[in-house]
């Protein structure tokens, strides 16, 4: 079971923490229907480590904590 922490813009009534079975970050994208909005704005952190590239190579195991982080900047 994977714990997924959602940022406020993605909660949409789902609460800030969800638990789900997932083997990869792609699984989470599909289950949360994030394919559209996340393109521009959201990154993943797995067990506190921010993923800046190579998302496809990240595999998840039982007990992992995934956080979706708003990756956006201002001035």
């Amino acid at each position, binding site marked *: 079971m994977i714990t997924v922490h959602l*940022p*406020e*813009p*993605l*909660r949409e*009534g789902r*609460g*800030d923490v969800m638990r789900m079975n997932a083997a990869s970050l792609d699984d989470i994208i599909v289950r949360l229907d994030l394919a*559209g*909005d*996340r*393109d*521009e*704005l959201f*990154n*993943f*952190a797995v067990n*506190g*480590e*921010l*993923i*800046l*590239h*190579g*998302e*496809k190579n990240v595999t998840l195991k039982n007990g992992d904590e995934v956080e979706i*982080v*708003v*990756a*956006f*900047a*201002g*001035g």
Partner: protein
Amino acid sequence: MSIHARVDALLGRLASEPQFPTQGQTIFVDLEHQEVRRAYIPLRVVESLLGGRGVNMFLLHNLLDETLEPIHPHVPLIFGTGILTSMVPSASRGNVTSWSPESRVLLDSNAGDYFPSFMKLNGIDHLVLYGKAAKWTLLHFEGNEPKFIDAAPWVGLDNLDLRARIAEDFKGVEGKDYGLAAITTAGENLVLCSGIMAGPKAIYARGGPGAKMGGLHLKAVLIQGRAADLTTARPHKLRNRDVALKLLSTSVVKNALKIRGTPFLYKPSRMLGAMGTKNNQETTWTDKLDAENIDPYRPGMEGCFACPVNCRPLNDMSGVGESDFGGRESEKETGEGFAPTPDPRLPTPAQDKYIKGDGPEYVTLGKFGPNIGITEVTQVLRLNNICNDLGLDTASAGSAIAWAMELYQRGIITQEQTKLDLTWGNYDVIEKLLFMIAKREGIGDAIADSSQAVANGKYPAEALDYLMAVKGLTQSDPHDARILKAFALGLAVATRGMDHLRNRVTLEINAKINDSPDFKAELYGGPVSAEPNSYEGKEIAVRRCENIYAVGDSVGMCRFTTKLFNSPSLPGYPEFVDQVENVTGISLTAEQIDGIGLNVMGVERLINERIGVTRADDTLPKRWFEEAIGVGPYKGEKIDRAEFDKMLSRFYEISNLTEEGVPKPEWREELEGVLAS
């Protein structure tokens, strides 16, 4: 040649009639002799540099006497509006340009709110100010007719009181009846990290424009009314609707900018181990300052002239705000309600004019949080509100305080000199320091000199080893760029110094884009490595960003809503060329307008060359070459000098620059031809 002779010579080459339907005047104001002259920028210059920042550079290049000191009143201060300012959604910006007394290189700073739009709507495209007024002056435009008013009633006022007094004295409402650009007591006292306030928070911040304006004895420029007829060459409002829809449908706008504003990068930066902390000695900090922790203190959002985004968060720590917006709604969803815990260290609302205000932006959160050792949201908000009132650039002021704190930590300056305990996170002292900086009192006088404190004899020479600055300008962005090499290159080559708003490849933090090599290559015009810490191809991304941001500044578009700064989907060249044609009748291709962005950088490098800037100045702080990141997934990362130097050479080559970083001879000849137009 004197400034008067330079202005005479330039006026002789400018046009006497508008060159396109919406063109406003360029007004030359000699504050010393209270003389006003007018002209129009020639079409060839507009076609090469557009307006705003680009044409400001044309004016500065023609009027600059580099044998003077930057603060000298015969070095002009130039306000400019973008060629689309006030006419396209989110195009509400303008630039102020000069020779910086803070960095001693090019000064060029951008602001929004309402002042630039009031310039444009009153037929003023550029305002060239020079000469020291005999007494403090308020320049009052009704339409485009200026009056020189004795500013004695407003001298000594800071931003909050000044704006209230102006509203009362001129019987109007800012943003509705007038636009105002003004300096505070910090500007009057020639504080080098002071800006020109264009609103309650909006500030022409970087490079010390407040001091520069103070050096002219100019307290404020007030533009009242809407006198100009801005009839466009062709209908443009239908295309405006497309621009607005594109803005509002972009994920970054609807999910972030419009809801919370800009402080989001704090979290990924600290998780990455790239959050500038304690003058970049460390690179991560508390999660207590994550953007969502500001939610309870945000009663609503504000925005600039005719912008549908409204990205400016307000703050209110009194717990008695009226709005039911933003973070409070999210708190409601979780059933927790809005109940921020009062900070017992702070005054009660009745005593405290800093209990509410505008902001903070991400820069302020970083500079007045981790960079000086502050961990409490309420303390950052209050320092933000004080800086807005005192007219201090939070990037420069925060950096200068952090520098002083590291010097204190290392014993390079001592309590005997400072009379204050400059320990990291010492909130009471930091708050006191802000007022001392504005008044140039005690150690505040040294901090007020910003990066020039060593040159001005306030700190010993060894202090320079710990100054986080490039070309004399301290870093704007709190992100520590030892990991992301595109960020690092951008900070090194930015023409105004160490500033992210000139060229930052923000999308380097986006994994989805990094993992899409074809899309990334299309976005930047060439292959760019997917790996954040690689040097490979990063010059291509910086070049593309620098071009489009320079174009954005020249049309007046906000950086946050310009393609590439935060999203690949925001308005960019297709929208810019269409609206430039609709508004002005000037037809450009996307390739041509990209070339204009390059031209702006080229002229800026010609100006910097005259001031003495060389390749050696396109570098980074010593710390980033010599000390490695100590935490996070990129622990051990720093900047490799040899790799950096090769990346810099590649950047010069694709930018049509020589190995010394100035335009190659053939291009230089073209640019000088435009500048002599």
